């Protein structure tokens, strides 16, 4: 039984990592678009964030998986559901991350930008070297919340028929008429999150060499 659950866990971990790799950097870009002085871009980004946060992730996943066929009659092949799952998770989480980045970016004092400007840093240098490192320290607790939620949200991939851990637990439970698979799956999610929490504590410690 554990073997089957672990085979599901590999998909769970894959969704988790793919989402972080895609959504963490994309969130920065979305946040910058959201704060852009070019109004149409800021407005479109606001709309995007609103839709991503305002509709169920489960529905979004189904839209990406089945939309191409229902809307355009395209048959996308058997592997499409994995791609759809990645797109759905990354775009959804990027929206949440973007708002956290935005809160962090806006909390950096104006004086930091002014000091950088007088020293001749370019706008890109100012953001990458001066602002972003400070933002990361400030938003770490809020990011931790989202990342822990993501671990559990990976279970939503079951609606696409991806055999991640939750799907496996569900199949096992109904075939064996047992609660045990759910208990074990729950325990694995929890241990996974303990590891995530420990990693977050570690990063927080590493960034505690200064305070402002």
């Amino acid at each position, binding site marked *: 039984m554990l073997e089957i659950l672990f085979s599901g866990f590999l998909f769970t971990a894959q969704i988790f990592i793919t989402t972080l790799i895609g959504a963490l950097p994309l969130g920065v870009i979305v946040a910058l678009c959201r704060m852009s002085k070019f109004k149409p871009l800021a407005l479109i980004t606001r709309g995007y964030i609103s839709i991503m946060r305002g509709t169920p992730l489960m529905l979004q996943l189904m839209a990406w998986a089945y939309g191409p066929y229902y809307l355009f009659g395209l048959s996308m092949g058997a592997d499409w559901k994995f791609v759809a799952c990645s797109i759905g998770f990354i775009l959804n989480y990027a929206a949440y991350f973007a708002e956290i980045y935005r809160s962090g970016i806006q909390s950096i004092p104006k004086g930091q930008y*002014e000091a950088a400007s*007088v*020293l001749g*840093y370019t706008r890109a*240098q100012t953001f990458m*070297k001066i602002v972003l490192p400070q933002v990361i*320290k400030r938003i770490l607790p809020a990011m931790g919340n989202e990342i822990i939620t993501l671990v559990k949200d990976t279970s939503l991939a079951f609606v696409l028929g991806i055999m991640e851990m939750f799907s496996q637990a569900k199949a096992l439970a109904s075939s064996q008429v047992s609660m045990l698979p759910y208990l074990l799956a729950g325990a694995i999610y929890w241990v996974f999150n303990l590891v995530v929490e420990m990693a977050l504590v570690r990063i927080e410690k590493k960034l505690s060499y*200064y305070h402002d």
Partner: protein
Amino acid sequence: MQPIVKLEHAKKSFGDNEVLKDISLTVNKGDVLAIIGPSGGGKSTLLRCLTLLETLDAGDLSYGDLEVTKTDASGKAVYGGKDVLKQARTKFGLVFQNFNLFPHYTVIKNVTDAPINVQKRDKAEALAAGRALLEKMGLAEKEDMVPCELSGGQQQRVAIARALAMNPDVLFFDEPTSALDPELTQDVLKVIRELAAEKMTMVIVTHEMNFARDVADYLIFMDGGVIVEQGRAEDVINNPQQERTRAFLSKYEEE
């Protein structure tokens, strides 16, 4: 000889509030100019316009032979392109009231990062220059600390070292001791005095009248967006000609 800074007929408004009304000033090499006056009189805005943190509505500004802005026929200030502004920023340094050090960088990185990554100077050379400056500021043993581990006076001296590391032609100070208690103030003033003795060109907005009289060659008293009185620092402070200057200075004597 070309003046280091030349500003003519500068005007700046925020909405309906006219903060600078026709300000002109010249700073020559080796000069120390002090700017005094009540809060809200336009001193900080003047400094922010000189350091390109704010844009002038009208006026001509040049650093040496580099023309940064010129008033066009319609009376509006027209700024040079990106290259001009970039070049202009190499001409001056600014020391802020609340330091604005980069909290995530060590002291030495605060001082050397811009020389290395903006001026693209040799790392070893920038590091040696940075260390020499810290030594001069009496902070030699602090180079691996981060700003939050230092006192306000030490932080401000790091900020001065950071500005000097760029080898500016002129150094601006925006009330450099206003955030410090009296004891720490003296440490910072001492450093500025030493720079003056070395003939560093400086423009200092300050509320320290004795310091202004001692260290500055010239002094400007600003109020209501205009230069009310200017002249040799000693003369203006010891023997002010204008009623407003007298009223302002008498408040300091009472303290």
